[in-house]
């Protein structure tokens, strides 16, 4: 499963809990459409850190990095590269 698919699956199953009136595509605006609240963001970051073995520190906690599945996946890829994984 790709990074994008893993993130999408987590958002759909764990955050939206299957209540998918909308289809979460790669560029679906997660913040603007209020898919995520602060608790969800917390859970998402904990998931990303555990799933991908990365550390999302404060310098990466930026609105643009959580704007969409694509933006989140790009951040994960950058952090994995930075770790040499």
């Amino acid at each position, binding site marked *: 499963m790709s990074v994008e698919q893993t993130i999408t699956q987590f958002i759909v199953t764990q955050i939206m809990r299957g209540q998918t009136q909308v289809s979460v595509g790669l560029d679906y605006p997660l913040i603007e459409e209020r898919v995520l*609240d*602060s*608790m969800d963001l917390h859970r998402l*970051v904990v998931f990303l850190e*555990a799933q991908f073995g990365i550390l999302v520190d*404060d*310098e990466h906690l*930026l609105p643009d990095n959580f704007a969409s599945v694509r933006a989140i996946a790009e951040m994960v890829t950058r952090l994995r590269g930075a770790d040499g994984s």
Partner: protein
Amino acid sequence: MEEAFFFESVGYRLFAVAHRPDRPAAGVGVVVCHPYGEEKQLSYPVLVRFARLLAQDGFPVLRFDCRGYGDSEGVLEDATVETQIADAVVATRLARERLKVDGIVFLGLRLGTSIAARAAAREAAAGLILWCPIVNGRQYLDEMLRKKVFAEILAKRRVTRQEVLEELARESRVEIEGNFLTRQMSEEIGAIDLVAEVSTFHQPVFVSALKNHPNGYASYEGLANACASHGAPCEFAVAGERPFWERDAMYDQYYPQDLFERTRGWMRAQPWIS
């Protein structure tokens, strides 16, 4: 039978509910120590349901709201870890009288586990139930600061945890998810070391953690091992599918039935049942 009433703790009127069984099973009762902030409200249905189940099993239960919470007097900013322990101690003495029990078992959830552990040591409790404990206060505080950062992200603003800490130092409080976290509370939370707090407790302990915990179970197992290493019989259970102190779980009316059953089984298996 359930009885709601107020009692006084260091100048505050605190709200409590006593759950009395029809047929007491033993001479022990349970005092419930709730979690911090919004988690207290969100876990309320679960704690009420579990109190009723314990009463059905013959164990009287006292639930109470610490100062600044729920129906008790004060605002959340009045509460610190130390005031919550003081309130728990007063509640415990009341529980012994009102519930007519000799022994007290403390049940804590999340931050309430630290309150429960320290009250248990002070009150020579008969047992300790630690549901999803905050083992490391620094880590928990960090989670809270991150939630503030996440709330700012949703407003498309950028703030770092360091900046939140600076605001806390400057203003003596910072708003996180609709509640004010005070500097004193943050310092006391940051100092929590549950392994050290249980080190003087030698009675039976039950520790639980949720299934599929993203960070694994090392800290919980360390806590359970620490209890066992100084002679406190300890059971560690992985139970409960979802964090029942969060909004989604409450909206979905989720109850951790397996956690209920494991804990009830542990209560029935202890030496206070003859």
